[in-house]
C-alpha cells in the first residue's frame, strides 16, 4: 500500500474498498473522472485498463464514446480529435505502443490538450520483453507531456483523478506510468472515492478553445519564425507553472480524500539522513523496506520518491542536496552513450546549486529484473563505502564474471 498504510482505507470519502489490479485501478479512475471519449489499442500489459473500460462503457456505467482503433497512433489521434472539440479524453498504452504514438504526443502537447494517458511501463524490444523498465516513457521526455510514476494501485487511481485537474489547469497532457506486472497485474486493496466528491473535485472541463463545425478554423496551424518561439515559450511556461499546480492539487486532494503523495517528490527518512537514494515507481516501496531495515541497524539512510519526471523537481532535489552528504539515483532505464536518465537530470539540477553532494548513478531492474530490498541495500552500501562513484553507471545485479 505504500506510504499511506492501512489508514488510507478508512476515510469518509471512501465509497468502497476493492481488491483490484493496477490496470483496473486506472479504469475505475477514468469512470470517476467522467471521461467522455476513450480510444485505445490493446497491448500487454495495458490491456486490462481498456478491457475494464469497455465493460464499464458497454454496461452504461460511463457515458463515454469508446472508439476502437487500429493502432496507438490512431488512438492518440482520436483523443486529440476528442479533446480539441472539448471532450475529456483518455487512452492507455505501453512500450512499443507508446513509441508508435510519438509523433502525436508532440501534437497533443503543442495543441495544449489536457489528454490523460496511462502508460504501463514495459521494456522496449528487441530483445522482446513484456516486463517492466522505464525506457519507454523516458524516451518521450521532450514531447511536452507531464509524467507521473505511481508506487501503488491506489496511487494510480488517485493520480489519474489529480491528472485531469492538473492537465486542465495548465492545458498540457499528462502521462501516468505504472510498472508492468508489479502493479499492472498485482491486486491490492484500493479505496474507491465517492462519485459526488470526485465531481466536486473535478468539475466538467470547459475548453477555452475548441473546434466548432459552425465556424471552422484550422488548428495546429502553421506559424512563421516570428511566432514559433513564443508559442514554445508558452508551453515551457505552462510546464513551469505545473509545479505549483501539482503541489496544490495534491494538497486539495489530501484534504478531500485523505491521501497525499507529496506533490512532486515524497521524502522518507530524508530529514536526518546522510545518504539518500532517489528512485521512482514500485522500487520505492521496496526501498522503504530496505531503509526501515538499515535504520533499525543504525545506518543514516533515507529515500526520495520521484513522483514526477516532467516537470523535473529541481527545487525539491536542491533542497534535499542541502541536507545530505551523498545522493544515489536508481535508474530503471539506460540512455546509451550516457548514463541513467534520472541520474543525468539530477546532476543537471544540481550543477548550479549552492551545495553539490556526491552523486552515485545505479542501473537496476531492466526488463523486469527483480529489484529486491537486497538490491537496494547493495546501493546504499556502495554509497556509504565510497567517497566518489567508481563509474558514472554502476550496474547492480549484472551477471558479470569478473565482478567481485
Amino acid at each position: 500500500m505504500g506510504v499511506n498504510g492501512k489508514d488510507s482505507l478508512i476515510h469518509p470519502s471512501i465509497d468502497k474498498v476493492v481488491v483490484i489490479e493496477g490496470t483496473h485501478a486506472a479504469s475505475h479512475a477514468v469512470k470517476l473522472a467522467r471521461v467522455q471519449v476513450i480510444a485505445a489499442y490493446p497491448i500487454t500489459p495495458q490491456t486490462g485498463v481498456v478491457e475494464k473500460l469497455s465493460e464499464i462503457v458497454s454496461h452504461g456505467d460511463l457515458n463515454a464514446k469508446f472508439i476502437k482503433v487500429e493502432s496507438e497512433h490512431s488512438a492518440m489521434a482520436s483523443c486529440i480529435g476528442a479533446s480539441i472539440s472539448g471532450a475529456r479524453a483518455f487512452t492507455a498504452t505501453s512500450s512499443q505502443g507508446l513509441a508508435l504514438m510519438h509523433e502525436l504526443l508532440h501534437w497533443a502537447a503543442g495543441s495544449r490538450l489536457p489528454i490523460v494517458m496511462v502508460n504501463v511501463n514495459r521494456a522496449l524490444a528487441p530483445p522482446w520483453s513484456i516486463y517492466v523498465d522505464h525506457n519507454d516513457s523516458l524516451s518521450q521526455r521532450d514531447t511536452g507531456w507531464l509524467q507521473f510514476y505511481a508506487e501503488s494501485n491506489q496511487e494510480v487511481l488517485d493520480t489519474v483523478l489529480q491528472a485531469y485537474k492538473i492537465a486542465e489547469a495548465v492545458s498540457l497532457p499528462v502521462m501516468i506510468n505504472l510498472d508492468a506486472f508489479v502493479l499492472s497485474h498485482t491486486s491490492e486493496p484500493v479505496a474507491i472515492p465517492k462519485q459526488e466528491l470526485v465531481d466536486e473535485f473535478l468539475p466538467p472541463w470547459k475548453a477555452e478553445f475548441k473546434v466548432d463545425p459552425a465556424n471552422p478554423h484550422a488548428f495546429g496551424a502553421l506559424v512563421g519564425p516570428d511566432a514559433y518561439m513564443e508559442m514554445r515559450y508558452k508551453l515551457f511556461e505552462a510546464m513551469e507553472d505545473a509545479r505549483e499546480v501539482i503541489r496544490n492539487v495534491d494538497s486539495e486532494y489530501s484534504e478531500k480524500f485523505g491521501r497525499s503523495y507529496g506533490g512532486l517528490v515524497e521524502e522518507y527518512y530524508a530529514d536526518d539522513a546522510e545518504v539518500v537514494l532517489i528512485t521512482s515507481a514500485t522500487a520505492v516501496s521496496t526501498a522503504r523496506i530496505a531503509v526501515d531495515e538499515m535504520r533499525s541497524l543504525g545506518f543514516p539512510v533515507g529515500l526520495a520518491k520521484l513522483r514526477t519526471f516532467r516537470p523535473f523537481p529541481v527545487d525539491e532535489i536542491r533542497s534535499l542536496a542541502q541536507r545530505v552528504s551523498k545522493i544515489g539515483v536508481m535508474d530503471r532505464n539506460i540512455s546509451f552513450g550516457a548514463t541513467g536518465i534520472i541520474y543525468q537530470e539530477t546532476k543537471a539540477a544540481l550543477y548550479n546549486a549552492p551545495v553539490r553532494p556526491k552523486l552515485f548513478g545505479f542501473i537496476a531492474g531492466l526488463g523486469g529484473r527483480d529489484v529486491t530490498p537486497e538490491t537496494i541495500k547493495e546501493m546504499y552500501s556502495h554509497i556509504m563505502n565510497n567517497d566518489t562513484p567508481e563509474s558514472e553507471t554502476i550496474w547492480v545485479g549484472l551477471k558479470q564474471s569478473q565482478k567481485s
Partner: protein
Amino acid sequence: MTKYKFTTVEEMPPLAFSIESTRKIPTGSWRHVRPIYKDKTSPCEVGCPAGEKIPVYFDLVRQKKYEEAWYKILEDNPLPGVTGRVCYHPCEGQCNRTFYDESVAIHNIERFVADKNFHNNPPERISVTDLLKSEKVAVIGSGPAGLSCAYQLARKGYRAVIYEAGHEAGGMLRYGIPHYRLPKNILDKEIGDIVSLGVQIKVDSRIGKNIPWGELEKYDAVFVAVGAMRSKKMSEGQRLNSSRSFGEAEGGDLKGVYSGVEFLYELNTGGSPQIGDKVLVVGGGNTAIDAARSALRLGKSEGSRPLSGKVTVLYRRTRAEMPAVPEEIEEAEKEGVKFEFLVAPVKIIGYRGKVSKIELQRMKLGEPDASGRRKPIPVVDSNFTIQADTIISAIGEEPDLSFLPYSFLKKGVRVFVDDDHSTGVPGIFAGGDAATNPNGTVVNAIRAGKEAAAAIDEFLGWRTKMDGVKQQVVQSEEINTFYFPHEKRAKFPRISVEKSKASFGEVNKTLSEEQALAEVDRCFSCGTCLHCDVCMTFCPDVAILKDEFGEYSIDYDHCKGCGICVNECPREAMELVEEELQWA
C-alpha cells in the same frame, strides 16, 4: 473581423489556430473526384417479386411511422397481411446480412406492418391519379394475380371488374391455404381494402358457364388470372417414373382418395373430409404440406380417433429437392408429420370400394433435370406395399382453360404469354398460375398482376413504356459492417406445437413492436440513406451540410474529394465520381 496583431508572448493564444475561418479557403479546387449521394438498389428489393421497397418501408418502421410504411408496401402489393404470412420470402434469400450473421426477418416485418394497420383503410392517395379513365378492364379470377391487377388498375383510374367463379373472392388464398396459416379475416380485410378503392368483384360468375365469354366484349381489356386449381392426376404425374402407371380408374375412384386441392377446398369451405388413421400424402410441394398438416389437425380436432402421428408425406426425391417452403416442412415435422423420401406410388389397392393399401416403388436420384433438381429414377424390383386408409394426392396443379373461346397459343396446359403478359390476342392478357410464367407462389402472382396492369395501361394508350434505369445492386462486401454489431435475428412467436397441431387456429404470431423495432435495426438499409450523419461526422472539411428537413448537401467549394464520407457510409448510399476537368 478583428485584425489580430501579436507582438509579444503575452498577447499570443496558447495554441496555434487560424484567426479567420477556413471557409475563406476554397479547398474544393483541389478536388478531382466528387462525392455524391446516390441511392442504390438493395438485393432484397430485387429478390422480392412484388418489388416492395423494403429499405424504404423499413426506415418508416424505424421511425414508428407504421401507416406510412404500410402505404409504401401498398404501392407494390395490396396483400401484405397475406404475403406477410404465406410468402416464401425470396427477399430474405438475397439479404446481404446473410453473409454477416443471419438474414433480416423481412417477412415478419411485412406482417407486423400489415397487422399494425388491420383497422386502417388505405388512403385516397394510394391512387396514383385522380383522373378517372373511361376504359374498363375485366379480370377473370380473384386470386392474388387477379386482385393485384385489378387493384393496380384501380389505382391508375380504371374501372376494374373481377369475375370470380367461386362464392367468395380470393382464389387459392381462400380455398387452397389452410386457416392455420392464413386466417380468413386477414384475407377478407385486404380484399375489402381493394374493393374500397373501386374494384368490383362479381362472385359466382364462372366465365363460360353462367357468364358467357361474350359479356367480356364490352371491356377494353381482359386479364386472365384463373390460376391452377385442378389437381394433376397421379397417373400424369408419375408417367415418367413408372413403367406401370395407373390411371384414375386404377384406384382413383376408391373411397378415401382425395386430391390435395379438393381436400383443402372442402376444409376451407367449412366441410370436414372423412379421413382415416393412416393418411398418406403424395407430393413435395406446399399443397402436400398444407394437406398433411391439415389432416393431422383434422384427426386431433375430431378427438374420437387419435391419429398417433400417422400422417406421412411420400415424396419421390429427397428433402433437398422438395419445392415446399423449408419452414413449412420444419413446422410439419415439429407437429409430427412423417416423411418418406425416394418413393413413388404405383397403384392404390382397394378393399370393398375403400382404400386399403398403396403399392410404392423405391427411387434413386439421377442427373439434374430441367428444373435443376436431381431426377428420380425407379429402382428395379423395389416395389412394396403399405397400409393406408386415406390417400391425398398433391403432385401439382394445373389451370382449367376450357372456357377460352380462342385457340390461344398454349404451351402445355397454360396460356402462352410474352414478358409483358400479352397473349397475342390484342387486349387479352394473362398471368399467375394460368400463364406460362408461373412458379406457383402468391408473390409471383402479385407481381404478374402488377406487371399486367402496367401493360394494360400501356395498351390502352395512357402510359408510355419506360425503360427503368437499372440501378446498381449493393453487394455484401460494400457494406461497412463496422457499424453493425452482430445481432440475433428475431424469432417469430408461435403457439406451442401441442396447441397448434390440435386446432386450425393460426400457428405463427406477429412480432411485438419491440421485436420489430429491433429487427429493422438489423437491416443494413443497403443503398438507401438513413440520414445517420456518419458522412457529416467524418468530413474533415465540414463540407457536408444538413438542412432543416434533414437532407444533406455537399459544399463543393470546400470538399476536397478525399472520399472519407463515401468510404465510411455504412450502406453504400454515396459514391465518388470523376470530376469533369474544365480547362478555361
